[in-house]
């Protein structure tokens, strides 16, 4: 495997990890563990197959193992640097912080799907491969995660009126 190819994906791995963990240091820990494991298992990657999905799959396994061994709470202390510090105000200004908090409140398996699809823009098939679950399960977790976010955000602040799509 060409080494540059893993390095190319580091920024996106960092972005996903930051959104998943909510904390910059924990996120980079996750990325580091993922890269180590990817190096150790590089002989398992089939040339020509989707490297990005493979790396996200490794990251997901590391993440799940961490959850199991540490029983980490999703609402762990947020690194203030990772999150724009928004002054308490009304209306749309709360939206950014609320999104972070609402994400953290999602069950991890829903959060992972919402982020892989909505942020990392994996297709449903790629997400299914990365998470090792059937596409149907991807869709149901996506639905539940997004609905839960919608409910949490609607409760937390007055969202601008939703447009009816024409």
């Amino acid at each position, binding site marked *: 495997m060409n080494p*540059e190819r893993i390095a190319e994906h580091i920024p996106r791995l960092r*972005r996903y990890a930051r959104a998943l963990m909510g904390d910059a240091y924990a996120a980079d820990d996750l990325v580091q563990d993922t890269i180590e494991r990817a190096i*150790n298992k590089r002989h398992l990657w089939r040339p020509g197959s989707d490297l990005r999905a493979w790396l996200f799959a490794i990251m997901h396994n590391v993440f799940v193992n961490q959850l199991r061994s540490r029983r980490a709470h999703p609402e762990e202390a947020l690194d203030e640097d990772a999150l724009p510090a928004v002054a308490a105000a009304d*209306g749309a200004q709360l939206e950014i912080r609320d999104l972070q908090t609402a994400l953290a409140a999602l069950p991890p398996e829903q959060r992972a799907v919402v982020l892989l699809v909505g942020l990392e823009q994996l*297709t449903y098939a790629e997400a299914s491969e990365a998470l090792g679950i059937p596409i149907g399960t991807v869709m149901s977790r996506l*639905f539940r995660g*997004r609905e839960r976010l919608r409910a949490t955000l609607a409760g937390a602040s007055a969202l601008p009126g939703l447009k009816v*799509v*024409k």
Partner: protein
Amino acid sequence: MKLPEDDLQAYADDRLDPERRRAVEAELAQLPENAARAAAYREQNAALHALYDPVLGEPVPERLRSVRARGRFAGHAMAAGWLAAGAVLGWFAHELAVDRPAARPSLARQAAVAHAVYSPEVRHPVEVGAAEQEHLVNWLSKRLGAKLRAPVLTKEGYELVGGRLLPGDAGAVAQFMYQDAKGKRLTLYVSRLATESRDTAFRFSQEEKVAVFYWIDGRLGYALSGELPKPELLEIATAVYRQLNP
């Protein structure tokens, strides 16, 4: 006809082919509850990008650039140098053309300079005022060869002052200026790029006193500049982005 749930999700994620998308939009027009959900999901996606895309622009921390394999490969010199060398090459390969460290100033830098030059102007902050907004937008659109819009930022507390035409690297640049009740100014710099880019990630740069959020959409580069704290500017940049990408 019922709207399959999977289609609603795919619609929110822009994964439908144009024909199917049109069909779904037609159905959503009759289903306000579903339409509200689809709109909410799209907003969530946009907000996720606005909040986390700047991570893509951060320098990769040292400890990730020299990761060593553990266990069987511990002390295997190849693994360490392997990734360090790869990281440098891979990192630069990932950069946008406009961000490539080179003699040419980046989009963010150009926008920040233009902001610093024109925002302090009392008598001539813009060339065409907001009173002639339609003319302003038509003029700048024609010069840039692209359909431009001046976002509406009244919810965020900013009114359009007007705009001007500027020279850029690859041709004409449009600068829209906004002002809040206290006279604080923001500028939106829209530049025609030399090459098309598919990387639309939100990026951030602090150019001395001027904070800049910038992104690329096809052949146009956008940069929102202001002497504002990053979170405040992020909120407005998100609003701009959403208006230009409904």
